[in-house]
């Protein structure tokens, strides 16, 4: 493989991205008796959730795509020799035989012929133009294959198979395929492009996808519970209580219903903790060491992880310690980050602090078991 792929997914509620995050309170549940599930059960409340998932990819470019994108940045288009043909965009391999090609790059274009086109009347935010444009397969002069790219034309009537187009380079070029676009040859203007510095060796590609969903019914009841200052779990096999519930019992392989919901205590025991010592980095807001604890609520079969503790001195904190959740005032409770993701359950932003109950510690060999 050519690429060294490297991406960490980032995920946040869509509301945050719109810049309304800190002030935003999740809209109140919508009661709508017309919302029927497939089983005909009336869903009493619906929490709409919308989130954006981003994968910022950084890729190395290699001996063919690197020079190709370097040339684009510098206002030239390169193809690669493949037998007696020239491929543009260039490839590292002969598309017919799979054989590795020598990086024998030749300049093609800047004009070419539209072999094929389609008119995009309603562009998406991912498209190179936000006004109607054409995707076209352009065979650049000197090339034998087509480049699929965008043509900026006044309207669909200006497009036809066989028409001549010419490359135009954007003012701001980054060494990416979007540095160029095409226009009908008559609309083209001459450009003088100053070459950039160095070789383009890395490309970045931000994958950004927005999803609209609603909280599953059991998750909605759990979220509503948090807003009401309660921890709602679900009873599963072995008389254990999962928090949050999954809507089904994974061990017994059966569906759960609202009848399986259980309100848990607001008191619990520390199962483990770690001390986070902030290191300085761009955007870091923490300055002092603080605690992150795993707490199991009384009666629960599953612990709550990553609970911030800032009100108890580090040297007084211990495994087995008894704590009580003190909820924020109702108006300040938020469940924006409670979603349908099964891997990272959240308790939202509803707990003001975890306060010692003053009870004696639970002995280490008597700590409750967590799934």
């Amino acid at each position, binding site marked *: 493989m050519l690429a060294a792929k490297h991406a960490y997914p980032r995920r946040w509620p869509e509301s945050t991205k719109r810049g309304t995050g800190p002030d935003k309170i999740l809209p109140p549940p919508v009661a709508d008796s017309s919302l029927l599930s497939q089983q005909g059960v009336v869903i009493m409340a619906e929490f709409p959730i919308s989130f954006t*998932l981003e994968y910022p990819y950084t*890729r190395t470019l290699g001996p063919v795509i690197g020079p190709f994108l370097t040339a684009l940045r510098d206002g030239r288009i390169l193809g690669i020799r493949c037998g007696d043909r020239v491929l543009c965009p260039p*490839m590292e391999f002969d598309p017919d035989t799979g054989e590795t090609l020598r990086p024998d790059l030749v300049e093609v274009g800047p004009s070419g012929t539209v072999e094929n086109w389609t008119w995009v009347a309603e562009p998406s935010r991912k498209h190179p133009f936000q006004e109607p444009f054409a995707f076209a397969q352009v065979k650049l002069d000197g090339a034998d294959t087509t*480049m699929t790219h965008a043509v900026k034309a006044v309207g669909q009537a200006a497009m036809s198979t066989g028409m001549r187009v010419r490359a135009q380079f954007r003012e701001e070029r980054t060494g990416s395929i979007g540095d160029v676009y095409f226009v009908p040859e008559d609309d083209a203007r001459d450009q003088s492009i100053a070459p950039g510095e160095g070789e383009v060796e890395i490309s970045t590609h931000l994958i950004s*996808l927005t*999803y609209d*969903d609603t909280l599953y019914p059991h998750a909605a009841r759990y979220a509503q519970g948090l807003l009401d200052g309660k921890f709602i779990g679900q009873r599963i096999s072995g008389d254990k209580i999962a928090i949050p519930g*999954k809507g089904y019992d994974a061990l017994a392989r059966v569906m759960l219903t609202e009848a399986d919901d259980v309100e848990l205590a607001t008191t619990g025991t520390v199962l483990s903790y770690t001390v986070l010592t902030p290191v300085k980095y761009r955007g870091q807001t923490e300055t002092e060491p603080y605690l992150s604890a795993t707490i199991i609520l009384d009666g629960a079969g599953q612990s709550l992880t990553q609970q911030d503790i800032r009100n108890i001195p580090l040297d007084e904190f211990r495994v087995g310690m008894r704590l009580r959740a003190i909820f924020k005032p109702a108006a300040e409770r938020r469940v924006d980050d409670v979603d349908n993701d099964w891997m990272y359950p959240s308790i939202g932003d509803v707990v003001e602090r975890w306060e010692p109950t003053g009870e004696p510690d639970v002995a280490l060999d008597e700590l409750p078991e967590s799934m």
Partner: protein
Amino acid sequence: MRDVAVVSYAQTPFVRSERARNEVEMLMPVIDEVVEKSGIERRKIGFTCSGSTDYLAGQSFSFVMAVDAVGAWPPICESHVEMDGAWALYEAWVKIQCGEVDSALVFSFGRSSMGETAETMTLQTDPYTLAPLGPDAISMAALQARAGLDRGLWSEREMAEVAVRSRRDALRNPEAQLKGEFDVDEILAEPYLVSPLRKHDCPPVSDGAAAAVIAAADVARQACEKPVWIRGIEHRLDSHQPGSRDLTLSPSTKAAGEAAGASSGRLDIAELHAPFSHQEIILKQALGLSDSVKINPSGGALAANPILTAGLARIGEASRQIVAGNGRRALAHATSGPCLQQNLVCILEGD
């Protein structure tokens, strides 16, 4: 080669939007049904393989969560492909051919309705020279349609006729999503969505899940009254650079069909995974299907197109037709990638 058969198939109804149930809740009844119909005890099924993508669910390791629907305690032997369930079935078939197991459960699932499906599909394209331009699935298919129109290989009317026939046939499929009687002239009078494609040339956005159980001959014969034999299953790939392909042809479908033995006997039925109307015409030509072959009695992908499930559904629908006695030999096809880039062909036969 071991004789392997599809012993059962089940699916959810394919719908525009599934909101009340999560993926596991969608799958659990389907898995129950397919296992019960197979006549093989769930715990005795040797291998499980699923096809899905995290990009649909919008959450990482969504396929791990889906294993909850199968029951993974005590532990099971399990695998996953980030591909259509048809390729999960292929992996399971290879596993049985290797003699490692005698039976396998295959499933796929997804809720396309949550995300920006057409844009999500751009992630299948070249990440250096194409994906950053956002070439969505509909625009890519539109380029392919135009290439054939320009060369007189098909007409907009012929494309509309495919759509009308598919949605009429879907009337007899209770699990299909988009069905009804449409008039060719009326839909040709509609505006272009992305020219030269009109809305009717494109598949609906669909949510759903499907599952199949396959087994080697001895197990299949014992468990099942009407095993549907997999006589051949092959997949092939065309270049990922659309400009290096003739988009009006599908050489990978042709090669997969030849390797799977499509032409070694008379075919009664073909379930073709053609999400866009003109693609059925390309596939029919690539596979050399005569007019006597009944195409997509289920309504095909134009009637319901759950991403990464629609291909497995073709195999399931073809095997259902054989079990129902509507034909003896059928071809099922699955596709992936822009403009029919990757194709799988499966030849099915009743006793």
